[in-house]
């Protein structure tokens, strides 16, 4: 079996004439990628792990001193960092739940015979295609207290969306929901259209009402793909930086990635920010793992 996986080299080919074997051709393709990954991903990852145990500052020439777990200890005892985590958690929950509701809802509406369905779907997907920075800049204009269209349309006068400490985080989440609901919609549509039509007919014959049909047939069958959407969106929302950074500078909307950025490039606490980055990484990994476990359980049912 294993030998059939690699196509053997045609004896009369040019490569064979140059004395290249299957294995050397394979290496030719793989080694550059592997090298690239090592230089730009793996090496910095390990290097920053090393820095996270030092008091290194990239802005000075002072030598780095090994401080052991001091950085981790300080960070985990820092109430400000914890409040950043709390803000991030709140943001993730609001924005992912919002995307799930809006995205799945729109998908349910689209999953029927309506005229110009293809065009409508494509148009609805547009927000997702834009760059985060562009979306952030545009929504900053939309949210503007004096000339923003949102206040104008809702008749809110000069309501400060982004400068109001209570509102800022919700405003960022709202923008994120606008941008990424189409992604959930796309996945949900794929899931919904995969539910065989005859099941709905059978349910109609069995005299099941619309809610009963939805909760007993539609939802269980779409659940695995919705879980995948949740995993993707949670990971992305957890590391949101650009959108929030552009939209607001309110401390109540300071996500963990913004804290990290400030620590690394404004306060130049390189060693400590490396430690924080590792804490975030471990958290994301943990959350994803829990999700994947749960997803497998859902799939098995």
């Amino acid at each position, binding site marked *: 079996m294993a030998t059939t996986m690699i196509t053997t080299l045609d004896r009369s080919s040019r490569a064979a004439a140059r004395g290249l074997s299957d294995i050397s051709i394979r290496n030719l393709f793989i080694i550059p990628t592997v090298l690239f990954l090592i230089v730009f991903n793996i090496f910095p990852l390990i290097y920053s792990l090393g820095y996270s145990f030092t008091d290194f500052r990239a802005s000075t020439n002072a030598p780095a001193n090994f401080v052991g777990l001091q950085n981790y200890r300080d960070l985990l005892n820092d109430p400000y960092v914890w409040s950043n985590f709390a803000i991030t958690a709140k943001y993730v929950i609001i924005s992912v739940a919002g995307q799930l509701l809006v995205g799945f809802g729109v998908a349910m509406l689209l999953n029927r015979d309506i005229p110009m369905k293809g065009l409508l779907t494509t148009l609805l997907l547009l927000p997702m295609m834009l760059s985060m920075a562009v979306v952030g800049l545009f929504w900053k204009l939309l949210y503007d207290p004096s000339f923003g269209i949102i206040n104008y349309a809702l008749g809110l006068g000069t309501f400060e969306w982004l400068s109001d400490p209570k509102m800022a985080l919700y405003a960022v989440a709202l923008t994120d929901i606008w941008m990424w609901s189409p992604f959930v919609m796309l996945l949900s549509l794929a899931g919904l259209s995969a539910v065989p039509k005859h099941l709905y007919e059978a349910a*109609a*014959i069995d005299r099941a009402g619309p809610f009963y049909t939805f909760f007993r047939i539609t939802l269980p*069958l779409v659940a695995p793909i919705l879980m995948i959407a949740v995993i993707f969106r949670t990971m992305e929302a957890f590391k949101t930086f650009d959108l929030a950074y552009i939209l607001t500078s309110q401390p109540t909307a300071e996500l963990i990635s913004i804290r990290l950025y400030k620590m690394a490039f404004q306060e130049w606490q390189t060693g400590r920010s490396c430690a924080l980055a590792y804490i975030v990484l471990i958290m994301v990994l943990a959350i994803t793992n829990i999700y994947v476990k749960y997803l497998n359980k859902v799939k098995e049912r």
Partner: protein
Amino acid sequence: MAHIQLKNISKTFGNHTALTGLDLDIADGEFFVLLGETGAGKTTTLRLIAGLEKPSEGQVFIDGVDVADWGAAERDVALVLQQYSLYPRYTVRENLEFPLKPKIRRLPDAEIKDRVDRAARTLRIEHLLDRKTDRLSGGEMQRVSIGRAIVRKPRVFLMDEPLSALDAKLREALRTELKNLQMQLGATFLFVTHDQIEAMSMGDKVGVLNHGRIVQTGTPHEIYNNPRDTYVASFVGSPPMNLIDGRLVNGRAVMAPLNFELPFSGGAKASGATDGRPLVFGVRPEDVYLESGAPVEARVHDVENHGVEKILTLRVGDAMLRATVPARTDVAIEQAVRFAWNPDKVVLFDKGSGVSLRHAG
């Protein structure tokens, strides 16, 4: 239990006409089989009765009530489909409970359990109740989907080729079981199939559907022995009825291009089979017999041994005739034989319209 009536039903899908002027009358407690080729409109008829489609024209009556505005739920029918359509991710028991559990007509738990157990016992799937539906074989799945129909005690059972995806042995077994089930429940069954053996063996009444029209309705016996036209004659029966062109001359059947004669008993004379009129003679293979002194000579073209009998293909000129003979008949291919037919069993069809002379009058 219900009496179903379709009046002048037509159904078109875009440019495609599925049914035209269909009339159907299914008595209460009857096992009615709708027989037709793929694409004849059988499934459409079922779906119209179930309320999954709306007729373009005509009316559907259940127990004398026009049900045009009723949804599938209100019509209270059960539908068993060829592709089983069990609810995935649920166990067999959960599938059987499904129709009993919607909030509006939720039954007490004890009643649900009782009905599920009874249905499982009837269909002999008790040992499967706690199994997930994707771990079942085809026959088991089809039993479960029939079970889901019977737990509910619907007014009508509609079955869309429920056996055609199963292997031969299982099909035979389930055929008998379904028939028994229907008698036991005394329910109205509408069974759709393209398999004429199923139609013959199960139906109290059979309706033959061709290109969206009902060609003939009757008991299996009527359909088999007295087909209304050459389509029914050639569609029902395996091997099909032999159809030979010819004329009636002085009370004898004279085959026109083939040049042979056979005796004909004058039963059909009264119905306008005048001498010289172009006709098609129809005779079932079992009414063709070999005899040494018989009037026509033919050669054995092919022999199919079915154990209890042999089906011979006889060649006369360039035409082929099928004859069913006892298995002990000793014939070889290319052997010359002489054959005759049972003159009482011959059906006459008009050459032009294909309609049987018995029905035309």
